[in-house]
Structure formats: structure tokens, C-alpha cells
């Protein structure tokens, strides 16, 4: 019972007794890999940081499963159980991501919009056709402003957008909104307001707009109508 290497002994004839040396080596490797993952995470490796951290975690998990959980020495049926579970986790992850990562901008459709789209066509088309034509180019007409249920300009100043984003081309804390309607679609404008740090114009700091919007409680207080009018207002710039 004292010989080296995994061996069988005692009343449980089929049980592998894993030597202390092996257990200690695995523990040492796990500690070492933890140190490696901490150190490599402090270094900026660009896109490699995440795959590296996950690879190290996977190796650690594999060591625990194979030696500490003794799956390497165990009845293969236990491995089969774990592997089956693992397969379904992968299926779960891939199917979910194939939706959420590739669905496009579905998630940013404002709640009010969903009801409007299912309403009878003649009640909706008027409101929607006019702005959409404008969005194509610079043919902005003042007449369109009369259709606005909420004053987008008022929303723009009420939530302090104007303190950072000028409308006349001058650069402030954030980029100017002059001509934004010609550069970006309504969806892009909408996404940039809802998720300011998703795309950052070069040379401008991230995080400030999100913090400002939180400070003025934008996401908590803005109504769907106000939000849409704000997007419309910007699309005309």
C-alpha cells in the first residue's frame, strides 16, 4: 500500500489512491497558473487578454477535474455524464450568441415604437414617411418641425446635451451634432444616446456622456415620445 504511483488498496479494491506527490504537484500548478493569469491580465495584450485568461482557467479546471476529482482514474461513465453536460453548455452558448450577437439593433427599438408599428397603416405612415425622407439628405424643411408632438430641441437642452455637443460645428467636450443627420441613421443616433460608449469618436473621452446622462437621470425620466423627438431633432441637424 505504500508503493509509488496510483495504486489500489484497502477494502475498496477498485479505488485509486492518488499519491500526495501528485496532489501537491496539481496544487502547485494551480497556484502557478493563478499567478500567471493575474500577471498577464495586467499587461495589455489587446484582443488576446480574454482568450488567454479563459485558456488558463480551462487548464486549471481540467487539472481539478482530472486529478482532484479523479476522473482520470475513474469509471468512464462519470466522464460521459460530465461530457454530455459540457456538450449542452456549448450548444446553449452557441445558439444564444448566434441570436444575441447577430440580431442587429433589435434591442434598441423603443417600447412605444412597437405599438405604433402594429397600428393601422394610415395612422402611422404620415408621421413616419416625412422624417424618413429627410433623413436621406440635406433637404431639411422647417415645415417638418410642426409635426413634432414633443419639442426635440427643448429635450436637447433640458437634458444638457447642448452643454457638450454644439449644433454649429464648434468642438466641445463632445463632438458637434452639426450634420449628424447626414452621417448617421436614426438607429445609430438612438444607439449612441442609449449606449454612449459603444462607439467613441476618436479624440473624445469615453464615460463622460454616460455619467452626465446618469447625473441628469436621463434614462429614468425621459419618455419614449421625448426620446424619439430628440432622435428626430438630431436627425435633422
Amino acid at each position, binding site marked *: 500500500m505504500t508503493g509509488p504511483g496510483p495504486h489500489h*488498496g484497502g*477494502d475498496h479494491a*477498485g479505488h485509486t*489512491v492518488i499519491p*500526495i506527490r501528485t496532489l501537491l504537484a496539481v496544487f502547485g500548478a494551480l*497556484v502557478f497558473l493563478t499567478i500567471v493569469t493575474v500577471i498577464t491580465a495586467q499587461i495589455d495584450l489587446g484582443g488576446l487578454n480574454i482568450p488567454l485568461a479563459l485558456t488558463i482557467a480551462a487548464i*486549471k*479546471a481540467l487539472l481539478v477535474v482530472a486529478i482532484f476529482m479523479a476522473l482520470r482514474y475513474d469509471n468512464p461513465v462519470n466522464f460521459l455524464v460530465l461530457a454530455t453536460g459540457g456538450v449542452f*453548455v456549448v450548444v446553449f*452558448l452557441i445558439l444564444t450568441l448566434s441570436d444575441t450577437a447577430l440580431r442587429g439593433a433589435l434591442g434598441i427599438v423603443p417600447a412605444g415604437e412597437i405599438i405604433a408599428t402594429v397600428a393601422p397603416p394610415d395612422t402611422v405612415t404620415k408621421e413616419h414617411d416625412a422624417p424618413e425622407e429627410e433623413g436621406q439628405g440635406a433637404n431639411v424643411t422647417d415645415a417638418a418641425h410642426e409635426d413634432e408632438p414633443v419639442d426635440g430641441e427643448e429635450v436637447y437642452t433640458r437634458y444638457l446635451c447642448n452643454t457638450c455637443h454644439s449644433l454649429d460645428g464648434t468642438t466641445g467636450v463632445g463632438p458637434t451634432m452639426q450634420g449628424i443627420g447626414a452621417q448617421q441613421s436614426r438607429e445609430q443616433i438612438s444607439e449612441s444616446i442609449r449606449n454612449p460608449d459603444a462607439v467613441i469618436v476618436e479624440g473624445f473621452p469615453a464615460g463622460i456622456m454616460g455619467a452626465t446622462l446618469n447625473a441628469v437621470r436621463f434614462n429614468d425620466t425621459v419618455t419614449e415620445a421625448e426620446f424619439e423627438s430628440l432622435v428626430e431633432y438630431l436627425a435633422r441637424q
Partner: protein
Amino acid sequence: MAHHASHSARHVQAHFVSSEQQFDAAKLGMWLFLVTEVLLFSGMFVTYTVYRVWHPEVFAHASELLDWRLGGLNTLVLLASSFTVALSIHFAQRNEKEKVVVLLLLTLLCAAAFMVVKYFEYSGKFAHGVFPGAAFAPHGESHGLEYAVYDVPYAAQFFSIYFVMTGIHGFHVLVGMGLFAWLVTRAVRGHFSSAYYTPIELTGLYWHLVDIIWIFLFPLLYLI
């Protein structure tokens, strides 16, 4: 495998042919349970992945608020506890009963140390308004970090995921502590030997899984 007349062994239940069969059945049952645990946590890992893919910069930014030193310390504590529980099985198989008691106690201590660190982490976050869900309102300053800087959209999402994942993981650690306390009392009473140590083996499997979950949580939440 030798034929054992272990019918007569006290721990073998009537519906099993042998101690060996009973052990294998118990272990298979444990692995089935562990797979349901893997699936439970996979739901949260997929949630994490989806939101990280949507808002990678926010997740990278928000994770700066978590202290990797504390997370790393807890990683080492859990790894050590995985080692001690594996050793306790080794000594149970060798009938060294005193060592089994000591190692199970050490495992229990590590689990408690993990929860103490987690307590300080949570209370540090709560003190600065870092709560899960709608109550999220970071403020103040500590360790050179200005918390208000982290009050950006979707940061609350990161911390909701952080609290739910570490919370459910922490609950598993608490359950583990209860199990190890129970094992210690049984080991002291001399219930375990090389012929019968199934409860230590199964609790060990559970404990290693809790360790593995943390092995992934640590880099995902604290490092990247």
C-alpha cells in the same frame, strides 16, 4: 476486482450487491447532480457572455472596481481547500483517521476564510452605493478609485451579474461549510475508513466543482 462479502458491512444498503456497487452508484448520482449544477451556472455564464458581447467596454471598465487582490486571495484559498479535501480522501483511503479530521477542518476553515473575504468585498461595495439592480448608485472614493466615474449605463448590468453569480457561488460555499462541519463530526466519531468514505468523496466532488466555478468567475469578473 475481488469478490467481497461486504453484504454484511454495516454501511451497505439492502438493495446493493456490494459496497463497491453502492459507492459507484452514489458517485454516478453525484456526477449527475454536478452536471445540473454546471447547467445552473452555465445560464449565468451565458448571460455574462451576452452582455459582455453587447457592452465590452463597459464590462472592462466596471471590472476595475473589483479588487483583483481580494479575488486572487480567494482563488488561492479555494485552491488550497480543494487540495486539503483531496488529501483528506487520500488519508481516508489509508485509514489515517486523525489526518482526515484535521484536513476536513482545514477545508472548513478555508471555506470560512473565503466567506470572510467575500463579506469585506460586498460591504465595501455596498458602502459606495454599488448595489445590484435599480439601487445601483456608485459614489465616494476609496483606494484611489472615484466611484462616480463608474456610474455609466450598463455598469449596473455588470454588477447585477457580479452579485448574482458570486452570490449563488457564495451560497454554495455556505452549503459546503455545512457539509464539512457535518463530515468533521462524523470523522471524529470514526465513521470513515478505507472501506467507507463515500460522504467525503461526494462532498469533495461538490467542493471541487465550487472551486472550478470560481476558477472561471475570478478572471471573468476581476481581471478582464
